[in-house]
């Protein structure tokens, strides 16, 4: 595959990444606002934060652009390092944010009331939290 074709293909994934971020932030802030307003029932999706992994694509684009402008070897070295560190960071965040959010939910006074039907292909689960007693 030529670099030009690969570039067009990556553009498609950039668009997908933007869509993923939109969903991620929308769902995240929905849960945050539900916590703030003490909603009776909150369904928290722990698999949502895996969408963070899509951020490797905009990063690849930035890496490409910066590396093509600055043609020094040291820069390439640092960019490779940045790519891998970013991936690991996203993976850690994808697991750490749900953990923190669930701790916050419990601290706010919510009770864990089991989970909805588990995902079959995706990671994570949809946990149900009730402000009062579980029904």
């Amino acid at each position, binding site marked *: 595959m030529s670099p030009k074709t*690969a570039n067009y293909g990556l553009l498609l994934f950039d668009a997908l990444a933007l869509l993923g971020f939109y969903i991620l932030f929308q769902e995240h802030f929905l849960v945050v606002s539900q916590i703030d307003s003490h909603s009776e029932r909150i369904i928290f999706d722990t*698999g949502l934060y895996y969408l963070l992994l899509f951020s490797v694509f905009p990063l690849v684009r930035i890496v490409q652009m910066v590396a093509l402008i600055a043609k020094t070897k040291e820069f*390439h070295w640092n960019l490779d390092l940045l790519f891998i560190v970013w991936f690991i960071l996203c993976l850690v965040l994808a697991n750490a944010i749900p953990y923190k959010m669930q701790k916050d939910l419990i601290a706010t006074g919510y009770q864990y009331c089991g989970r909805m039907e588990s995902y*079959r292909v995706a990671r994570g689960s949809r946990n149900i939290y009730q402000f009062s007693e579980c029904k």
Partner: protein
Amino acid sequence: MTPKQELMKELKANEYNVHIIEWDGFVKEWENKKGIVKTGVNYVSPAMDSITAVKLLRDFGITGKLVIKEYGGKAYIILKGYPGCRRIFRGTRYLETNPKVVRMAVGPKGILKSVKGGFVLSVVLCTGFHVFDYFIRDEATLFELLGRVTSDIIKIGVSSIAAVTTGLFVGSAAVIGGSVAAPLIAAIAVGLAAGWILEKIDENVGATKALIEAYKELGIGIDETVETIKDIPNMLTSEVYRYERWLINRVLNQNIFQY
């Protein structure tokens, strides 16, 4: 050793612990742990790919570079850096189809093989999970099992295709494509994230439910067909009987008119 101690030793050697669990309790325990088992099943394939990526990173370092070039009509993977410092790839140039290269998910063929392996493993584990669940639960139906397995295979297939495409795009990109581990890492990232999107699409569109319903309808169709096939000998017998009656009547009528 005293005879008592000998006897104790012999008894301990033949000791077996048998745990008998009540069926209802077992089903309840399965219902509780099902989610965890499913999560574990979903992590197997990405975990194996991650192990390969870690091995690659250990061998090449974070900045491991490669170039794909064609010589004499054959694609070669040329590895940059010092081969003496590496453990797995001790050479500088490998054929793209070299088993070591393919096994370690280096280059386009390697990524394809890795994702293909992940797809097969995921399908086997996923199907195993559903079949076990089908046998355990009394209320589970065959249509439900078929619908879920079909929809899961489609989802795993789509996310595998997305992962391969990503790996190939990143591997062929201008700057990052030179990195040994980057295409595999990008493929893992997409494989992990695509699953969630596919689940959401399924949830909103109701693909699995539609599949289960379709299997149910197909099941009714099959039942009717089987009943019809079973009825064929009876139908044939009655038709033959009717024909015989008609023939006998005809002969009798002809004879009556003759006399």
